[in-house]
């Protein structure tokens, strides 16, 4: 079930922490949708309105470091971001993203070669192509694929509890 898509990218640096993704002052808003206008506001306040559904974020290493706030991957997903491609991911963010069905791809070589507005073509589990250059990417471990194939952790638990087939 190799999935392929092409997307416009937004480029960020190393160590993008979850306070940048969504600052603490907005975490008590009622829904994740209410938080979306403030995504990335400490770093790039204009970005949340520029992001279009289907876009992809390309970042350096340690994306999602810091606070455990699960609103971070949820806000990114609510903005319509199709995937985050980074050199590496912080562990709590990684688990939270998987549990919410947000696609994360590790590709350390890509960040240095691209800028805002470039287009990438992603073949999930295989490769990324940008400006004529192809970058190999790995596949997810089995236990994480199980969660994703179930449609996220909530659906996996609903199935466990006999609420979904």
């Amino acid at each position: 079930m190799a999935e392929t898509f092409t997307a416009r990218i937004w480029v960020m640096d190393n160590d993008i922490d979850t306070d940048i993704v969504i600052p603490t002052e907005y975490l008590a808003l009622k829904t994740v949708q209410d938080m979306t206008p403030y995504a990335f506001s400490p770093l790039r306040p204009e970005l949340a309105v520029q992001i279009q559904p289907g876009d992809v974020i390309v970042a350096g290493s340690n994306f999602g470091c810091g606070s455990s706030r699960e609103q971070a991957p949820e806000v990114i997903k609510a903005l319509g971001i199709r995937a985050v491609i980074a050199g590496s991911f912080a562990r709590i963010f990684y688990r939270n993203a998987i549990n919410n069905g947000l696609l994360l791809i590790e590709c350390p070589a890509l960040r240095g070669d691209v800028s805002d507005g470039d287009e990438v073509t992603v073949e999930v589990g295989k490769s990324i192509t940008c400006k004529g250059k192809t970058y190999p990417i790995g596949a997810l471990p089995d236990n994480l694929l199980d969660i994703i194939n179930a449609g996220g952790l909530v659906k996996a638990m609903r199935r466990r509890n006999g609420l979904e087939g």
Partner: protein
Amino acid sequence: MGATYIEKLLRRNTGEKTAKAGDIVTAKVDWVMIHDIFIPFVKDKFEEMGFTQIWDPDKVVLIYDHLVPASQLDDPRHHKIGNQFAAQYGLTHVHRSDGICHQLMTEAGYVKPGDVVFGTDSHTTTYGCVGAFSSGIGYTEMAAILGTGELWVKVPETIKIVIDGELPENVASKDVILRIIGDLTAAGASYCALEFSGSTVEAMSVASRMTMANMAIEAGAKCALFTPDEKTAEYCNIPVSPQWADFKGDEDAAYLKTLHYQAEELVPVLACPSQVDKIRPVSELEGLTIDQVFLGSCTNGRLEDLHRAAQVVRGKKVAPFVKFIVTPASRKIYLEALADGTLATLADAGAIITHPGCGLCCGRTGGILTDGERVVATNNRNFLGRMGTSKVEIYLASPATAAACAIAGKITIPN
């Protein structure tokens, strides 16, 4: 081959006698902690998952700390939902204004050596100070634990950190962990366990070890581990257990790497804006004027931290243009510092003493700053926009350094 501390701990917990770094195991959870920001989200996910009861209500601790007392109109809803959730599912461990979650989980007698604990906060690594495996997770995984009592864990690789010798008078455990984070970098311990040992660590109070375990996440670590001893027993109000002899890594265990530090060579340091791994000696930044000092948080809001600051400011006055905000980590600490005169000493010097809680650390309550302002703070994060606007400069420091800066009105080395 021998085993690391975390391998032994997870073997005991899971019964998988050969579990080693890289293996995926299912841990049986001894305690969970949920704080007020995330309670409504946990409740929604828990019910969406179709659970109707909590696996063991006696193992769940709800703590209101980030939003106490409420400062924004959306905040009280979180406490109302928390109260409803506790009543509906029979939760009895609810702390509504007792202090910061990471202080209370050990101080109030919940977490003990060898326990496996998860919390909806990245600084859950703190409980490694008593030899527990504790780590932060999101609200969806927390909801799944509430229903099942289990969580999958990849047994982490371990970075061993050995610190020997006697620390200089003006160097605290905060300076030690900041230096280590600077050396490891913000991603340098990602997915790893940090195992601390050496004579410096053995001589430290449990409170000082808490500061170090608390900040392990700032290097990306999954957990931090200290070997329990007589001090741990006294702090946890339990007898020393013969089992604790094995609460450490074997000499021939497989470590990712080992870092050695000699305590006498360490100096007071600061984490400079806006990354925790941007470490410089205080001496290199001396003279930089400041607008505010924050002494508090789950990193450095304990009695020994308040004592150290009081020692520095006793008989002196805070610089007239500096606001010196002191936030004890818990009500117990607040009362102890009140009883022994520490709060009076700090207030007399010009400190603003606030209610126990997360306070300024998460930029939610009194003390937020604006463009161009500079703050020296004892908490764990100096991220962009953490304490006000994104043009605030946050420098992280030890309590002694912070107090010395408050008096001087500029960055200065504590004596």
